[in-house]
């Protein structure tokens, strides 16, 4: 698929590809480890036989997490990490929310135990997370139509849903935006769920290709799963308008597709939890059945604790009960039960009125800083770039990320010449940008946009 080339770099090798490759493993029928192959090297005295994992090649670096690793290795003073989407303060330091520190201290004082959570996770967390998403007292919650289980952040929650799809909708496809978060494809690949793409990003406008999106969703076979970003689309930062969301819901209902929301930035996009949940709530109003994966990595800064949830909105409480039981059956052989720490933090924060308000304030602050940085970057670009290029897309985009419109060659220039680390699809994380660095970044972007070809002699990809 040509379009997938524009999006993130290499994904995980499919098992088939690995087999085809130089690995001498897995030939059908015979056990390759039995072959008496002449290896032409000295066998170590302590080893019994050459390793059966001999032919395993190095996996490609993860296109997103690999960026941070490369950044760490760079010794240049001016280096800037705009790779992974983790919030930074103006001083470019990681930020642990005050409300999180409070919650942890409370938990320590209380002396909570460390017993296994049930497979579905912490009940108080599951309740809180569904209410945050749909609004407390929403009919789907009151009528117990939502199956919610705690998952390992967004990734883990998506994976549970993907496994459910594979098991109960064999052959059904997931249609994902072009581009999308790089790990989406890995998740569906490893879950063996086929996927295809719907048009999303329009490089000409550096905006949404709405017509293309609607057309492609319409064209997907009835009953496909449509992966939607609830807010703050990753990697582009381009969200549909409220009117466009209505039309998206229309066409999904028309084609009897199943919406599948990835909500990784609730509260982080606009600064308001409710506003950022508007798309999801619109679909809930329609009485549709759909999935929502949530993550607290960004909005509560709990990246490392892997806390999220998968919600399946069903048309009946009975269906929700059955679906929940099957989600548990998928989770048990993956990790048995989810980690407790992050779940307790969320439950404590949301469950206490004071802490909840404090959280909302800190979230507004984080989202606010990003908006400020966007503005400064835009202003710097406009004042420095004399070509007349329209940079307003920076202001129209929302959330942690901005799709700069830089192609791979230009992105490479950003890194190789300017020591600005970003993903090759042209995505920068504004969360890693300080006001102080905006001018430097503007210089780098302008240079890369206009001159990269001259430096690196790579053809432009459109």
């Amino acid at each position, binding site marked *: 698929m040509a379009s997938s080339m524009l999006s993130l770099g290499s994904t*995980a090798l499919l098992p088939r590809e690995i*087999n085809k490759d130089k690995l001498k*493993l*897995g*030939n059908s029928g015979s*056990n390759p480890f*039995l072959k008496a192959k002449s290896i032409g090297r000295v066998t*170590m005295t302590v*080893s*019994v*036989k050459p390793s*059966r*994992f001999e032919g*395993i090649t190095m*996996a490609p670096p*993860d296109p997103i*997490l690999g960026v941070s690793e490369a950044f760490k290795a760079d010794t240049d003073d001016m280096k800037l990490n705009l790779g992974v989407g983790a919030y930074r303060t103006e001083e470019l*330091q*990681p930020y*642990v929310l005050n409300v*999180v*520190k409070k919650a*942890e*201290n409370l938990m*320590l004082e209380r002396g909570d*135990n*460390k*017993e*296994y959570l049930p*497979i579905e996770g912490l009940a108080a967390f599951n309740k809180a997370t569904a209410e945050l998403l749909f609004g407390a007292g929403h009919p789907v919650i009151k009528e117990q139509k939502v199956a919610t289980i705690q998952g*390992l952040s967004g990734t*883990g929650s998506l*994976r549970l849903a993907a496994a459910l799809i594979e098991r*109960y909708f064999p052959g059904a496809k997931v249609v994902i935006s072009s581009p999308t978060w790089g*790990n989406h494809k890995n998740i569906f690949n*490893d879950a063996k769920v086929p996927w295809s793409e719907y048009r999303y990003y329009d490089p000409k406008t550096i905006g949404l290709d709405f017509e293309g999106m609607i057309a492609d969703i319409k064209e997907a076979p009835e009953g496909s799963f449509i992966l939607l970003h609830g807010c703050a689309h990753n990697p582009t930062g381009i969200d549909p308008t409220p009117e466009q969301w209505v039309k998206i819901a229309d066409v999904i209902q028309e084609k*009897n597709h*199943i919406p599948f929301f990835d909500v990784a930035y609730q509260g982080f996009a606009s600064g308001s939890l409710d506003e950022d949940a508007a798309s999801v709530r619109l679909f809930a109003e329609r009485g549709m*059945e759909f999935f929502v994966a949530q993550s607290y990595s960004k909005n509560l*800064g709990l*990246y*490392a*604790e892997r806390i999220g949830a998968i919600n399946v909105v*069903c048309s009946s409480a009975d*269906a929700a009960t*059955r*679906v929940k*039981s*099957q989600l*548990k059956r998928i989770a*048990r*052989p*993956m*990790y*048995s*039960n*989810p*980690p407790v*720490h*992050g779940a307790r933090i969320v439950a404590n924060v949301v469950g206490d009125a004071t802490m909840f308000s404090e959280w909302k304030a800190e979230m507004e602050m984080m989202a606010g800083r990003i908006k400020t940085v966007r503005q400064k970057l835009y202003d710097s670009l406009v004042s420095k770039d004399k070509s007349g290029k329209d940079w307003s897309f920076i202001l129209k985009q929302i959330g942690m990320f901005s799709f700069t419109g830089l192609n791979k060659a230009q992105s490479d220039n950003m890194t190789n010449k300017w020591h600005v680390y970003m993903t090759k699809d042209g995505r920068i994380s504004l969360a890693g940008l300080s006001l102080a660095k905006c001018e430097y970044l503007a210089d780098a972007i302008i240079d890369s946009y206009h001159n990269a070809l001259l430096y690196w002699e790579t053809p432009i990809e459109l």
Partner: protein
Amino acid sequence: MAMSIRNSASRRAMNQISNDFIGLRSMSSWWKSVEPAAKDPILGVTEAFLADHSPDKVNVGVGAYRDDNGKPVVLECVREAERRIAGNAFMEYLPMGGSVKMVEETLKLAYGDDSEFIKDKRVAAVQALSGTGACRLFADFQKRFCPGSQIYIPVPTWSNHHNIWRDAQVPQKTYHYYHPETKGLDFSALMDDVKNAPEGSFFLLHACAHNPTGVDPTEEQWREISQLFKKKRHFAFFDMAYQGFASGDPARDAKSIRIFLEDGHHIGISQSYAKNMGLYGQRVGCLSVLCDNEKQAVAVKSQLQQLGRPMYSNPPLHGAQIVSTILGDQELKSLWLKEVKIMADRIISMRTTLRESLENLGSPLSWEHVTKQIGMFCYSGLTPEQVDRLTREYHIYMTRNGRISMAGVTTGNVGYLANAIHEVTKSA
């Protein structure tokens, strides 16, 4: 399998379901074909226990340690570690392979503090979601890189082992392990199975404190097993969930692994801190694979990370930090070793008391196995029907295979437990 159809595959049922799927009636549920899943046999026991209102109820179901008051325990060393790390400024994503420090310390426990394999960087290792996550990663790894292979699993084993390799789509075979007549190890049958398995087979071994039986090979038997594995060029994958918890001495509990390493096997190990550090809910563990050389270890590690990325991206931090704080500090580590021994000793003493109580009650059966078996579990030999009676009549909860979690036995309930067991078995 996926679309389970309640009626036999009649045309009408098929049409109904395909109509639903195509969605001609837009409000009908997508989930009609989703059956309620059976309750997990182990975790389901605790659920039932919690729902019981009898004041006499005893939970000897799930394997989580309890103190002599029947209360969950958070180790002192863990509390202290938590105090030290609370509110720390670091909550960023761990690298995909997890906490480097935690993994380093964990490998030392399994391979030995001065292991040449660690020095030579031949161990590919990643932090995993406790033992379950480590086994699952290995199963997925096995599927991806040895796609024709099967896994040999002992009978019986922890029930989730079957789920793990099944969901990883690795075919399973079994090997003899538990000998019901002696309530011990069926060593000769085990060796036969090892011998008869095709060369180069993958075997799942419990490093110590076999779950659910508590029956471990002796050191001599481990040596024989290792020699036969050598002859057959089998791959040994060790699930070590109870290091330190079995005998009270972590080095001793790792003996089986050390024997295999000495004999030159390239093994895989799943390690868990759920029991021995009481970090159950934190989900901290480690998967390691011993490779030929550093280069291969780097490649294997990268592939393990690749398997974890679409499952959870990177593993949780908190538990890993607790582990590395404790093991990286001399004092805390000593405290931990003391506390592990206390837990193991309490269990051993409960075994003794339970056995003596049963013998004093005049039980016609032999209860020798209660003290011969080791670790958290005792395979009592009780039948499912006897277990059901224990639950119905005495509000005693255990899994239906007769596995008693000795960690749930206290000086307060051992008499009641012995009496109840005696009652349901005296006419056996």
